[in-house]
């Protein structure tokens, strides 16, 4: 199986892109061909991904499926990809989510329709996201990181809601702004390393022999790039607009995968290469994280737009992820990766629900909704389940990540101010109450109560077969991750523990 080891990652990553190129020549009118082809492409990629899951040696800590060949020798950049316990769960999540998105879209292409362009963009997006998770060269990482931007920009800008123009430009510029700083830091790392290299693995192993203050500045650049993507408070304002205006599938991908590119960047690049600077930054990151938790939850309470509410809830949930990262402990980082996957599954699912509700009611205005338990019982049942997962109920996916994050905050890495982190822990715990508050308040207005007079006598379709197909895996994962957190923890810890033990402070 040598050939599989050598090529699996590249195949899984680039199949969607190649598929997108082929789709360019399929006539626009052959919609069924286009849909079928796109689904086949994403399934192929997923199949290779499943092969990787089977071939992956879960007992090893290092990188696997590694490929390292010259790429642009002029700037000493190599095509270096590989996968380990940190990237594997996110890689698998991405492969799965795209398939579900294509399934969900089947009869739901938003205006102005055009499945051909929509699916091509989605597949290019997939390659960008997959590539980011396996890239081990800073320039390669940057390229993938940026490839993601454009398709998403068009998905929002073309298929979005009424205010799509503003939202898409804001999304594009905001993240690009961060990327610029990130790129400068990448270049700085190149010139500050001896010998000069863009290789993440080499940089991690040999570290940067630089002054403390320089390290902090380099980290600042990375921080801006990643924190905007996460997004951390106060760099989050692109998110509610992007989510609200994006088409359903765009929101799902945005929530499930795109936000993780930022947190993943911290774990893959920021922390291991610049541990000292990370330790200086950590309390501030922790502070912004818990501010985000409280602030995001409070903003949720004020929302009347269902989608916007979920968007703000992401700010809070990603706060828990960042709190885990800020502790700089293996436990915290495990918690963060768990949180990323769980948030991807749960919030992705919530956006699917938002889309389906909008399809039925043609509004997302919470005060106008109500009584869904009586009018669309199954959909309402799923909504209740997923909402409880989102508010962090044990035995569902949201809990293990959040709890372990808080657990890690009690005992941050040596050298960090434990008292500060314990305060963060308490603030985060208060956040869990607020989270429950806005979720239940939402359910009370949307799912419970009598059917409002506006909708009385209207018959709504309950969950249809395409919705079942795209939701069932996520619902199963929501329960499975909650009951068996080892599905993620046992994979990540093998890599995280050796990589992050004793490198800080």
């Amino acid at each position, binding site marked *: 199986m040598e050939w599989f080891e050598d090529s699996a990652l590249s195949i899984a990553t680039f199949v969607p892109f190649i598929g997108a190129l082929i789709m360019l020549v399929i006539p626009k009118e052959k919609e069924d061909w286009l849909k079928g082809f796109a689904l086949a492409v994403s399934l192929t990629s997923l199949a290779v991904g499943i092969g990787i899951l089977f071939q992956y040696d879960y007992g090893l800590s290092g990188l696997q499926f590694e490929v390292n060949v010259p790429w642009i020798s002029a700037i000493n950049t190599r095509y270096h990809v590989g996968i380990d316990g940190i990237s594997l769960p996110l890689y698998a999540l991405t492969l799965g989510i795209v398939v579900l998105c294509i399934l969900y879209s089947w009869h739901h292409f938003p205006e102005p329709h055009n499945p051909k362009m929509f699916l091509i963009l989605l597949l290019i997006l997939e390659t960008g996201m997959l590539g980011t998770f396996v890239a081990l060269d800073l320039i390669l990482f940057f390229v993938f990181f940026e490839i993601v931007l454009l398709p998403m920009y068009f998905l929002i800008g073309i298929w979005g809601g009424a205010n799509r123009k503003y939202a898409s430009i804001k999304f594009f510029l905001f993240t690009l702004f961060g990327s610029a700083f990130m790129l400068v830091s990448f270049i700085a790392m190149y010139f500050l390393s001896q010998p000069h290299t863009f290789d993440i693995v080499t940089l991690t192993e040999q570290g940067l022999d630089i002054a403390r203050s*320089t390290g902090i500045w380099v980290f600042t650049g990375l921080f801006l790039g990643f924190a905007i993507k996460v997004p951390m408070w106060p760099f989050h304002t692109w998110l509610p607009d992007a989510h609200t205006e994006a088409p359903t599938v765009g929101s799902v991908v945005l929530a499930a995968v795109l936000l993780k590119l930022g947190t993943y960047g911290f774990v893959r690049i920021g922390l291991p290469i610049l541990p000292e600077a990370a330790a200086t930054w950590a309390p501030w990151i922790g502070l912004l994280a818990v501010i985000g938790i409280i602030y995001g939850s409070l903003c949720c309470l004020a929302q009347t737009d269902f989608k916007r509410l979920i968007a703000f809830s992401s700010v809070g949930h990603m706060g828990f992820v960042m709190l885990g990262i800020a502790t700089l402990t293996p436990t915290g980082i495990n918690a963060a990766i768990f949180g990323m996957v769980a948030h991807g599954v749960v919030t992705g699912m919530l956006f699917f629900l938002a889309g389906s509700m909008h399809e039925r009611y043609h509004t997302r205005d919470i005060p106008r909704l109500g009584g869904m338990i009586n009018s669309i019982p199954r959909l309402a049942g799923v909504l209740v389940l997923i909402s409880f997962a989102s508010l962090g109920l044990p035995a569902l996916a949201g809990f293990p990540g959040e709890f372990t994050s808080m657990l890690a905050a009690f005992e941050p890495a040596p050298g960090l101010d434990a008292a500060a982190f314990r305060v963060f822990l308490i603030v985060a715990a208060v956040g869990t109450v607020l989270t*429950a508050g806005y979720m239940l308040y939402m359910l009370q207005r949307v799912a419970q109560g009598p059917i409002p007079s506006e909708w009385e006598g209207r018959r709504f379709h309950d969950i249809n077969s395409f919705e079942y197909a795209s939701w069932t895996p996520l619902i199963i994962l929501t329960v499975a991750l909650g009951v068996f*957190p080892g599905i993620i923890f046992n994979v990540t810890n093998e890599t995280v523990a050796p990589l992050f033990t004793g490198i800080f402070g």
Partner: protein
Amino acid sequence: MEIFWLLPILNIAACVLTFFFARSLAKGKAHLFTVPVVGFSWLVALFATGQVISGHEVVSQSVEWFDFGAGSLRMGVHIDGFAVVMMVVVTSISLAMQVYSISYMRGEVRYITYFAIVAFFTAGMMILVTADNLFLAIFGWEIMGLCSYMLIGHYHEDIANSGAAIKAFLTTRTGDLGLLIGAIICFWMVGTFDIEAINLAAFEGEFTGHMIEVAAIALFIGVIGKSAQFPLHTWLPDAMAGPTPVSSLIHAATMVVAGVYLVARLYPVFVEAFDVAQATGLRSVHLVALVGAVTALVGAFLALVQWDLKKILAYSTISQLGYMIFGLGVGAWGAAVFHLFTHAFFKALLFLGSGSVIHATHTQDIREMGGLRKVMPRTYWTWIVGTLALCGVAPAAGFFSKDEILAGAWHNSYQWVWILGVVGAFMTAFYMFRATHLTFHGEYKGHGHPHESDNYITGVLISLAIPSALLGFIGLPGQLNRFDRWFEPEIIHEVVEKYGMVKEEITSETYLLALVSLAVVGLGIGLATMLFLPKWRDSWVPGGLHSGWTRRAPLSYGRTLLENKLYLDALYGTITLWIRDDLSRASYWVNQKIIDRVVDFAGTASLALGRGAYLFDQEGLDGFYDGLGVGANRSGRALRSIQTGQVQQYAGVLIVAATLFGIFFILVN
């Protein structure tokens, strides 16, 4: 006992089956799935009780669960006598209320969902009481919270009910933040979530610094929320919005005692942290005893002014939970757990009895009842058994359990708690007989013609009345006590021994204390009968109770205070609404008007800068860039038909920003 781990799984399976297949396979008769399972669980629990009595060893089974970095976790059960007692409580009451519900919920909306959630709840409580580690226990704890939320909101079409459900969930969730933090502290102090290890570490003083106090206080906040202790008790009366059988299972017998269970389970932690034995004399505030005693009194006082039959029972439950908590707080572990055990039966009986009454009269207001003794004899006589047990009239079960708590307070030099407890006992007798007289005696004042409930309901009432009457005899005082000897876990026994917290022999003091509390209870019953028994009332209080002297200060102030529930609901309501409506809007205002304005401003400013740069680019550098730009322009033209933004300009911004940062970088270096 070896198959206990299977029981929660079976109940969850029953829940899932009911949910998905009850409609198609059983024509909606959801109980066909859940009742056999809970019945089986009940038999297993009874059999296990026999095993424990005959000296069966503790069963510990666990499997690898997951490893999150700081430690690995196992999922497992730890079944000792205490766990078995709890299992008996859960399965008995759950079985009783499910059989009862077959009749009570017949024809109601969401019959299937109701049974499914009840089964899930039963599993949750089973997980809690058998869990060998705190992490798993939290699973059970929160599953119950979820089910409680759903069942309180069963009739969610009325916004008051969904509001009550939210209130219950959020109040307990507020307490839960303490539980989570307490569990986290225990983990870091001991290195594991394992309950036995935590107990041992606490017993041997292995917590560093003041961490044991912090952990105990945090955990106790969780207890206050879940077990409806003052000042977080306000959710429980509102939780009566759920169907009455739910109140009997969740809000009387099982979920609300989860907090009591937690204190009893982690007893060494609380004993050491709060100096329950008063051995060191270091700490003057005995938090557990104080909160419990205050709750016992507050609950009893609030029950006095209620007219809603279920709310009287709800406040009574709060008060009795207070007894259990202060029992633990004064070192009477066995008595408190015994009271938990007996209370489950007689309070479930009373709730189900009230359900029978409500079913017959279609009201919950005791002013619209009266005279039901004649038409509902079975309900009446079982209610009397439950009432006597609750008041603590010998030889009903409540007499032994409550009296032992009081004796324990006296024995461990908590005289102030003993006094509060005795006052509470007086109040209990008073409010229960007030309710009994108004409901069952005199003339019927309501509408329609109430009649006795069917055999499902009265059968269940009778089956619960028997243990309510007789169970006390296994918990006799002193050396006659069987309950402690059978069911007390090893570690608790060691703690109790170490501080000499239990009196071994029966002395004249024992009889004296029992006589005092019996006399006080008699006084309460007598006074209530004088004031409320219709036959006698008019001769004692001419013009009725609500005229004359009760209207005058200071009694009227007290009445106003109680009728407004000590203004706690108003306070919490104000705070919650302030956060929900005002603070949230203020945050969102900051988001839209300040943070986002900065972003928009930066955008506009860069746009201007970008235009300048673009101008410079076009005028100055176009020769060089034109060559590069051809390709970009072509693809750009293709995209322009669909895109609206001017990406080229922003690319200009990007370059400017990057250059500035780069220059800055070089300068800093």
